């Protein structure tokens, strides 16, 4: 995983509550056996007509979304299915942070493993951000994970919380599987103590 660095970008607002991962990437695209090529399928049914032409009203089809790396989402973003295809599609489109008042648990974990920052802000700050970005579509924000601050060009500066371990993993690009593999001794010791078990090979 690449280390997560400070960046600035325009903000794409999608202020809808409870956006589920079936919207982020519909299930029919999950027949793939690869992680790649999912950017086209991001928000597919909100983004395209039945014949595949882009819906001009949808925010991701507007010029302001081009090159943008911050999504300003509604409450409880990423609920529903555990599909990691959701953060894969978001990052392949170019997003590096999603801002919301809260995230569904599995989506949050999946995002952290793919260098996508789930950035939690209080409801008042969320409302101010939304107002600012609706007033100025070109408004830029800077995400600084090191200092846990989101600074908006309009002068707004928001401190955001993040789990200490998750922060370290993002900043240093630590691969969590690698971290657990290093615990081999503890895992083996635990297995020695395990008295009972199923055996699916029996």
């Amino acid at each position, binding site marked *: 995983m690449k280390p997560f660095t400070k960046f600035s970008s325009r903000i794409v607002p999608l*202020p*809808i*509550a*409870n956006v*589920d991962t*079936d*919207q982020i990437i*519909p*299930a*029919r695209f*999950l*027949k*793939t*056996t*690869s*992680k790649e090529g999912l950017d086209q399928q991001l928000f597919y*049914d909100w983004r395209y007509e*039945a014949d595949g032409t882009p819906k001009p009203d949808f925010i991701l089809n507007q010029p302001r979304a081009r090159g943008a790396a911050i999504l300003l989402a*509604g*409450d*409880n973003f990423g*609920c*529903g*299915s*555990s*599909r*990691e295809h959701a953060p894969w599609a978001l990052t392949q489109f170019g997003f590096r942070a999603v801002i919301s008042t*809260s995230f*569904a*648990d*599995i989506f949050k*974990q*999946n995002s952290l*493993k*793919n260098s996508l920052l789930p950035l939690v802000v209080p409801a008042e700050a969320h409302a101010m951000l939304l107002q600012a970005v609706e007033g100025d579509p070109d408004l830029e924000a800077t995400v600084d994970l090191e200092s846990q601050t989101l600074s908006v060009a309009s002068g707004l500066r928001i401190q955001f919380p993040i*789990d*200490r*371990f998750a922060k370290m993993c993002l900043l240093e690009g630590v691969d*969590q*599987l690698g*971290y*657990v*593999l290093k*615990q081999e001794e*503890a*895992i083996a010791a*635990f*297995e020695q103590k*395990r008295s*009972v*078990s*199923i*055996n*699916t*090979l*029996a």
Partner: protein
Amino acid sequence: MPKTIIEKVWDAHVVREQEGAPSILYIDLHLVHEVTSPQAFQGLRKRGLRVRRPDLTFATADHSIPTHDRSLPIVDPIARKQLEQLEANCREFGVPCEGIHGKRQGIVHVIGPELGLTQPGMTVVCGDSHTATHGAFGALAFGIGTSEVEMVLATQCLLQRRSQTYQVQVDGVLKPGVTAKDIILALIARIGVGGGTGCVFEYCGSAIRSLSMEERMTVCNMSIEGGARAGLVAPDDTTYQYLAGRPYAPRGAAWDAALARWRQLPTDEGATYDKRIHIDANTLTPMITFGTNPGMGMPIDGVVPSPETRSDPQERESLAKALRYMGLEPGKPLAGKPVQVVFIGSCTNSRISDLRAAAAILRGRKVSPSVRVLVVPGSQAVKQQAEAEGLPRIFREAGCEWREPGCSMCIAMNGDQLQPGEYSVSTSNRNFEGRQGKGGRTLLASPLTAAATAITGVVTDVRTLL
């Protein structure tokens, strides 16, 4: 200090807890399916890793698998490749797999319990958000993403922070026509789809105690729809009776020892929870959803709520958007609304008791000619049992389609899907936009409500047919 069952199971599986880091939790059972595993196996290959404990791992094909005649070829080449990839991956890594032609194939959350793989006090994971189903046995069962599938394949461990504990106490007696599905839909309607975020539910109370194992699975299954990480029910004699004699359940002296261990699991007197809610089962009615998330539910004799009644602007807009998608008018009842499809199946409601309940309503009746009715058993074992009881004949004579086991129209990956604009009363777990097919409109309900609706062709309160 008194502990909840959630804390007991957690504590018994901590491999390591370090200051500032999530716990490393040992996993007793890892269930695998074709959709969320290919990239995980590919990850192992890239790193040169093996599956650490194939003996604690079990795979099956359920999401992409067609539910028509299994002797026919799979026409969707992408689905076929994914299904073949699962079998190839399992062969390469030594993981037991019930694939396309497996005699024990079925929906992963149906076969785990019926094979006796799921047992009290276990930690269970699967790359699937409905893994909480296994919580019905007093197991701590988490849905995980593909990176975590790879981690568990490689290390048999999960990195996880402790969740909050949330007691869901349901007391009283369910009235005729009211089912386990209505309990969970009522809970989610009360707390919302984010109400359980960061929590593990423990379902308890006299109404939960009186549920069968299959009914408890229905309740636990939809914990994720309330936002919870997991949901469980402490084991009791109902649990042990269900488990005894199942293929992977312990036998003889091992059974006695297991029983002694399992009896220690229930929450201690005086243990406290971070959150609690109480539901009176006596007052519950059959539930149905009207919107585009499972929290948008109401009693079947109610009316569709108006966005104007919501004070929070985001919530108001969400509800308005949902009603536009669903083509429903505020203030109108749902009962009497014509539907084009009825789907009876999914990891929520495809077990033998669900099929028996639907068959009891459909026996000797005909489904409305304007409705397509799909009945999809959860597993080969459920299918065989249903056949032994003559249920397929009842379904076919009524005018239903009787299918092969799989997730089918719950997730609409396998060709079973709604057409744009169609309404379906479904026994599945999600009514998200497009979930059952692009433009399809899902009304979630119990197998009883689904069967009643199949007969009349309009949303029907089953209590009028009892």
